[in-house]
């Protein structure tokens, strides 16, 4: 077992007990003040647009990118997790409510939020009666355990997140159900199923983030009888309002009503449309055209319209009224690896931060609609964030050349230096930001080379600290979004020293600071997310003061919604329209 796993297990301890308290509130009773007629950016304001309970119609989703996997154990794309809200359910899930309520967990297959015992180390869930798979068999605790066990069979089912292994393996080296010696294939010792309605998780340490893990798709139940391993992704068994009626990779997936889904067992999903289609297009411009003409309802990938459509939308009030510019939950930034001179010196890092032109970087990413000027590393929506915190004066939007030159002098490089920016060649906005920084740094005599690498090689290029050092990548352009909505989920892989990996590393600055690591441990031990939140605020301050990052922006995407959509709002847990409740009016 490598140190990183232990680290995740150890560190991912966020305010668990409290979840009960917050989520029992049921997600902020009624901000469902529905708005008609919409308007620009209206779906991000914490209100539901076109609220309706009317059933019927076909919801038409489109994307230039196909799903990674329909198998819930293997999917990792954010938009696929949203699509999976159509056909798979977990013990817990994010509430289908606008505003902050959407970031809270509520019970779904479970009757209530988990009961914690044994000092926060034991999680017990009771499963609702009457919840069924699409073939009508009841969902039992064993199906949930089996679904979780499948994640351990990484040799067959790779692709998805592996948090569950980190937390539940506990040294037993469980090989997954296919190599399980237990006759019932339920040999994972840390998960117990005393009866069909009860499932018990025994953790090594208290870990409040555990509830978040129970809401990720890979915790969905899977019936053992229908599991054919790698092939399961072509015909997953549904538990939600819809089932997969057909799946043509690279082309189309059709979802039809799941007759064995009982709305009485479900407070989150409403299942309004009769049918949902997901079409993959080879031409994003064509997709935009169809969106604007009302032919398609929602570009489910959520990355926003192409430049051509963007111009149309922003210039035409008719279109603009049906567009939103939501936060995607991503942050775009430059990181300065401390292993590459002269970025071992804080003054040289400060020089680069001061010399950068934030406005120009924003333009390079696509202008104000592509994101708000970022000044720190914790995006809005994550507990503990403070959008106004701006230690380096970046939101003023101008290069601060005097300060930059002073910092350069303090660094002992008054005549500038040479360095290299590593950038993914297939991400045009990232290349554009690298070019912008390169142009800005010329003003203080810092000579920058742009080294492009293929984005698919990220984990071995910038994710390998030895490679970063060897190639002298002094500046790395990247984007980051969390897998689950907690300060630890967002920041820890970036700045906790124990998260440094030989491959696939995300702690590019190689920060291994006792104070920062200690703050994460402290936050993990906190009782509630509310209590942990200010600690994440402190982490954010600590890393910003070290001048390790130059934030570019809090990412936004210009997204068009078909006016015929009902129950429209951006679920803040994922920055996307919530497919659990989205409907269509005729």
């Amino acid at each position, binding site marked *: 077992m490598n140190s990183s796993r232990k680290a995740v297990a150890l560190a991912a301890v966020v305010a668990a007990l409290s979840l009960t308290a917050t989520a029992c509130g049921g997600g902020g009773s009624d901000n469902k003040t529905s708005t008609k007629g919409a308007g620009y950016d209206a779906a991000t304001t914490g209100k539901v647009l076109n609220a309706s309970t009317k059933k019927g119609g076909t919801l038409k989703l489109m994307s230039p990118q196909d799903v990674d996997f329909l198998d819930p154990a293997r999917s990792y794309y954010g938009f696929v997790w949203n699509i999976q809200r159509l056909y798979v359910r977990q013990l817990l899930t994010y509430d289908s409510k606008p505003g902050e309520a959407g970031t809270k967990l509520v019970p779904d297959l479970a009757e209530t939020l988990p009961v914690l015992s044994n000092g926060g180390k034991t999680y017990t869930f009771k499963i609702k009666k009457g919840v069924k798979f699409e073939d009508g068999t009841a969902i039992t605790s064993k199906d949930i355990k089996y679904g979780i066990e499948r994640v351990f069979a990484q040799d067959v089912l790779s692709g998805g997140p592996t948090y569950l292994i980190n937390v539940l393996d506990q040294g037993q080296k469980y090989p997954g159900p296919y190599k399980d010696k237990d006759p019932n294939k339920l040999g994972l010792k840390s998960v117990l199923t005393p009866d069909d309605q009860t499932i018990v998780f025994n953790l090594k340490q208290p870990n409040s983030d555990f509830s978040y893990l129970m809401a990720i798709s890979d915790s969905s139940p899977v019936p053992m009888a229908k599991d054919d391993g790698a092939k399961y992704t072509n015909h997953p068994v549904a538990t939600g309002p819809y089932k997969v009626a057909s799946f043509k990779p690279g082309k189309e997936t059709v979802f039809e009503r799941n007759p064995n889904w009982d709305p009485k067992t479900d407070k989150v999903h409403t299942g309004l449309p009769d049918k949902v289609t997901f079409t993959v297009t080879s031409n994003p411009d064509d997709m935009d055209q169809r969106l604007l003409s009302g032919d398609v309802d929602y570009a489910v990938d959520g990355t926003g319209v192409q*430049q051509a459509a963007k111009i149309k939308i922003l210039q035409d009030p008719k279109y603009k009224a049906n567009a939103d510019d939501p936060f995607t939950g991503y942050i775009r930034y430059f990181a300065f690896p401390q292993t590459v001179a002269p970025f071992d010196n804080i003054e040289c890092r400060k020089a680069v931060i001061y010399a950068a032109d934030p406005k120009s970087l924003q333009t390079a990413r696509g202008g*104000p609609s592509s994101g708000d000027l970022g000044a720190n590393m914790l995006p809005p929506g994550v507990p503990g964030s403070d959008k106004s915190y701006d230690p380096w004066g970046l939101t003023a939007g101008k290069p601060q050349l005097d300060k930059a030159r002073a910092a350069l002098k303090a660094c002992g490089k008054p005549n500038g230096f040479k360095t290299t920016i590593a950038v993914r060649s297939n991400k045009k906005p990232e290349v554009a930001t690298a070019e912008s920084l390169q142009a800005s740094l010329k003003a203080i005599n810092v000579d920058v080379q*742009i080294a*492009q690498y293929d984005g698919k090689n990220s984990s071995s290029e910038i994710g390998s600290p030895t490679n970063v050092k060897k190639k002298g990548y002094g500046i790395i352009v990247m984007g980051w979004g969390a897998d689950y909505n907690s300060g630890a989920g967002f920041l820890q892989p970036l700045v906790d020293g124990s998260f440094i990996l030989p491959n696939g590393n995300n702690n590019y600055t190689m920060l291994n600071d006792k104070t920062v690591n200690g703050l994460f441990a402290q936050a993990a031990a906190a009782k509630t997310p509310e209590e942990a939140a200010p600690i994440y605020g402190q982490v954010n301050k600590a890393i910003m003061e070290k001048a390790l990052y130059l934030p570019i922006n809090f990412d936004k995407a210009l997204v068009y919604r078909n006016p015929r959509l009902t129950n429209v709002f951006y679920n803040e847990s994922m920055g996307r329209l919530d497919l659990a409740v989205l409907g269509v009016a005729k």
Partner: protein
Amino acid sequence: MTAPLHDSAGETATVDVTADMPAKDIEGRSPGRIAWTRLKRDKVALIGGVVVILLILVAVFAPFIVGLLGHPPNEFHENLLDPDLGTPKGSFGGINSDFLLGVEPTNGRDVFSRIVYGSRISLLVAFLAACVSVVLGSILGSVAGFFGGWVDAVISRVMDLLLAFPQLLFTIALVSVVPNSLWGLSGSGVRMGVLIVVIGFFGWPYIGRIVRGQTMSLREREYVEAARSLGAGRVYILFKELLPNLVAPILVYSTLIIPTNILSEAALSFLGAGVKPPTASWGKMLSDAINTYQADPTYMVVPGIAIFITVLAFNLFGDGLRDALDPKGS
């Protein structure tokens, strides 16, 4: 035959062919002289030649031209862009007396300067790749044609094989794995080196086939026979007797392979396998323009026309040269 006097540019264009020719046109005319006379009559080819020379001058004196008429090619002018849309303010991509060809969307760089600097990449890659093809193609082609037998069989099969390869895909794949520094080069230098080698390498069979064919017919000629009977070695015959007679076709085809190479470089840049930013390249500009061409067509049209004019000029000139050197022509 009287030929009207042409401007000096026309003469420079064909300096290779006529370098050793006397200035007066009386008496016995060598093939080179005939060709030159013909070329001088071909106005279209001459125009092509003039444009080629102008382009070479532009590439060579790029810093001077940009200093005079443009802005530094990597300088940002975001104040000239619409802050929300990122496209140039004003019509026709922001063309005005200061920015002769407008500015680039998203960063406001001077398109004129980037076109001027882009010509360097285009021409340099095309010329050097042509050299690679010509050297490989002439040597291997003449060896195959001259020696025949299994040597010919092997080289011919290799040529067939190379022609059967999806070259574009190979090049993209290769370029994507080339490290950022190689052969003591770094940055755009590496990519240019790789482009030159790869384009040149895939181009040699075209020249190789022609040279092979020509060699096969030449080796049966009397003068080769004569050299052989005088006891000349095979290598001597190949390089001293045959190759000089292949200069004309090689020259023609290298002129015609240059425009193909310009298109290859642009295509690779278009597909993202060209030189690295911020180095300006016409193909890269076109591929960037895809994002904005509906709102800012100027930025698409300008590099497209630059490629077009350059390739057309080389083609016109190369065509004229071929006609002029063709012994069967009238």
